[in-house]
């Protein structure tokens, strides 16, 4: 059940009505049943997987709390880590490992008898695995007590608005909200609906229309010249943002209607003036997770190896996104970007002072924003490509020039209407993001003139109705 489907359009209000009509003490049950139904709408078997993960972590949490010695607690933590990461590995990385072994052996002219495993990746497994891991690690560290109520804990793992593509919530932030009494709040319902519609606009109008162009270029990159490849790289960078942040808006909006506050996940990342800043604003909950549970513990062990850990963490972050060497490369590029950024920070500032551009703060900031966006777009080639070969091929052929218009008119599904939808919706998204720096949950809050705000609302609604792509795809982050 996609957020941009009729099923969800009916599902959410029905659940909201049942939720608010039910007595407070049974509301968790309504949300739990809804969450499992939501997840099972992809495949019924998925419910077993998430239930296993939930049970293991609930048990590990309770058992850890009963132990007074750290060493004994560790046994349960390790069990939880092994089972959760084992499931993640089996479903997400086993096939990748299998293919890598095959390639290596074939290079050495050795036969590899194991065929393709064709393991189906359960939707959202990376998200809920990280979410449950944060819970057990928090208990191990003594940052929180275990959740005694199995139903509430199961709801924390499976809460439908953020189940399949984040935000990755901490138990300390989400679980107390399931206990709190929620009343029907019309302002919240209106705000939540606005956020859902804005998310739909970003995904279905800008993201999906760009996705058609991107699809053509990345399906057969060798058929295009450098200029088209550059357009493809920038187009995908905007598409992935609209797709991921659009999903987050819809998730936050859906939860808001139910009186639950989810974490912010995207904070205008393309207005960042460095890659490090961009990662602090891009998929914030996963970056925070990696910082809290991976990078900082590694740093505590050995501070001298901090640069190595930095790159390593980004490689892992890249691999978290997908099982493929191109994702490893994507992570590696970002690790190196940040490493080089840190190592040259002082020198760059000094250089700026020496040549006299440091005083033009707006100019240098805008230049840095543009440069950061360009670097991100370059790395994103690896993110979208079908493999490492395509990644290198595209990166190596970016500056070969070539035709643009004739290539675009050769694309049967990409026409003037798509270009119109992209250009006008881009202006709106850019304008909203540029002006709204503080209130991420109310994208239209900076438009003070009522009639202008209503024009924008109407435009958003009619653009969704008119320029949505009929064979709209699933959200890009679902595959992770």
């Amino acid at each position, binding site marked *: 059940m996609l957020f941009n489907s009729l099923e969800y359009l009916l599902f959410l209000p029905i659940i909201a009505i049942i939720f608010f009509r039910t007595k407070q003490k049974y509301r968790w049950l309504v949300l739990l049943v809804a969450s499992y139904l939501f997840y099972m709408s992809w495949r019924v078997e998925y419910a077993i997987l998430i239930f296993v993960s939930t049970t293991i972590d609930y048990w590990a949490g309770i058992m850890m709390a009963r132990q007074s010695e750290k060493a004994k607690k560790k046994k349960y933590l390790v069990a939880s880590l092994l089972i959760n990461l084992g499931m993640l590995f089996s479903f997400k990385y086993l096939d990748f490992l299998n293919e890598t072994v095959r390639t290596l052996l074939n290079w050495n002219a050795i036969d590899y008898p194991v065929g393709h495993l064709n393991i189906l990746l359960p939707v959202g497994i990376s998200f809920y695995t990280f979410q449950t891991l944060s819970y057990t690690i928090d208990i191990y560290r003594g940052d929180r007590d275990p959740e005694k109520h199995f139903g509430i804990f199961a709801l924390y793992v499976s809460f439908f608005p953020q189940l399949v593509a984040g935000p990755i919530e901490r138990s300390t932030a989400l679980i107390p909200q399931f206990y709190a009494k929620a009343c029907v709040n019309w302002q919240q319902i209106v705000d939540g609906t606005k956020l859902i519609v804005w998310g739909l606009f970003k995904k279905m109008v800008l993201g999906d229309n760009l996705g058609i162009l991107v699809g053509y270029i990345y399906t057969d990159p060798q058929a295009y010249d450098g200029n088209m490849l550059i357009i493809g790289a920038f187009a995908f960078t905007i598409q992935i943002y609209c797709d991921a942040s659009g999903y987050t808006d819809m998730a936050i909006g859906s939860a808001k209607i139910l009186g639950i506050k989810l974490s912010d996940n995207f904070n205008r990342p393309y207005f960042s003036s460095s890659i490090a800043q961009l990662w602090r604003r891009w998929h914030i909950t996963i970056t925070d997770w990696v910082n809290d549970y991976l990078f900082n513990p590694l740093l505590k062990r050995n501070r001298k190896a901090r640069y190595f850990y930095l790159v390593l963490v980004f490689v892992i972050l890249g691999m978290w996104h997908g099982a493929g060497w191109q994702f490893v490369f994507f992570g590696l590029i970002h690790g190196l970007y940040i490493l080089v950024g840190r190592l040259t920070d002082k020198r760059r500032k000094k250089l700026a002072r020496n040549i006299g551009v440091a005083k033009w703060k707006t100019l240098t900031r805008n230049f840095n924003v543009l440069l950061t966006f360009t670097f991100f777009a370059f790395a994103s080639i690896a993110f979208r490509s079908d493999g490492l070969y395509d990644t290198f091929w595209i990166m190596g052929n970016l500056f070969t020039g070539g035709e643009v*218009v004739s290539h675009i008119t050769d694309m*049967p599904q990409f026409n003037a209407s798509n270009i119109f939808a992209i250009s006008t919706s881009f202006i709106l998204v850019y304008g909203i993001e540029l002006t709204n720096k503080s209130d991420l949950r109310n994208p239209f809050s900076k438009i003070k003139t009522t009639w202008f705000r209503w024009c924008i609302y109407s435009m958003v609604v009619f653009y969704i109705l008119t320029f949505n792509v009929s064979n709209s795809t699933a959200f890009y982050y679902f595959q992770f």
Partner: protein
Amino acid sequence: MSKSKYIRPLGKKVIRFIGLVLLIHSILYFAYEFFGERNSKLFKNDLRLDTHRSSIDFLFMGHSRPGHAINDSLIPNAFNFASNGESNIYTYYKLKYLLEQTDKDINYIVFPIGHASFFDQKNPYIVNHNYWNKYIDYTELGAAKSERFKYIQVNAQSTFTPYAHWINQVLNRKFPKLSHKKGGLHLLANNEKKQAHAYTIIKNNLESRNYFSDISLSYFKRTIALCEKHNKKVILIRYPITSYYKEASETLISQQGLNHKGLNTILSSLEKVTIWDFENLYFGRDELFKDAHHMNAAGRLEFSEFLKTRLENFTN
């Protein structure tokens, strides 16, 4: 703040906004009704059929190949009811409507078979959806394709906002330089380019269609059964294509394992049906084609004359 004080201003705002949306919706809806629907080829053809006399000797149905190959004014008492991108599924519903809900008395019904005739759109066919609403039972079709919700969604979307697709069409027409150019066979200089053009057409179709679909085949069988039920005679025609298209189609079929195993068995089991194969009729006569598998005006003229004679001989 009391509940009523809190809700009332918000309720007013929401009602005003809904009012504004309805106003814009009505303007767009009437603009579509007035400028869009009445000018579309599909609706015009429907109108032509309504005014056609009730007895029709030859009704041509199917996708764009018969659509482009038949000039029904050259064949006595014939009507070309084919439309672009029409799969067997859509043909079935159109015919069902004609046979069961109109007074049209049809003698022979002519369907296309051959290369890419048993396709099915991967997604609900949104183009001119408002037109198809009249014919298709989307609940039944959605159930047959196990995509009930998707079809209900598309149906609702096109019923309430038929202008959506029209606006896209208008934009594409106004800015043809930025829209997909289908090109023409006559513009292509050499055989190599013509061959490449044929491959591109099929590859583009493969993006949006299942080339051989079991559902399409089952609807084809239902169509034949429907004709039998209403005592209508059926002719199946393999329409003329270029040699490039045939070669490209066969290569891609074998490459991608798209061959439909059951098709030949089904065709050979149809006893009361006449099958004519004209696929090779104009091999080497590229001047008669608009592209690799659609005839142009000259081709339409020549083929319609040819078919007229053939039909006269057949019926006598």
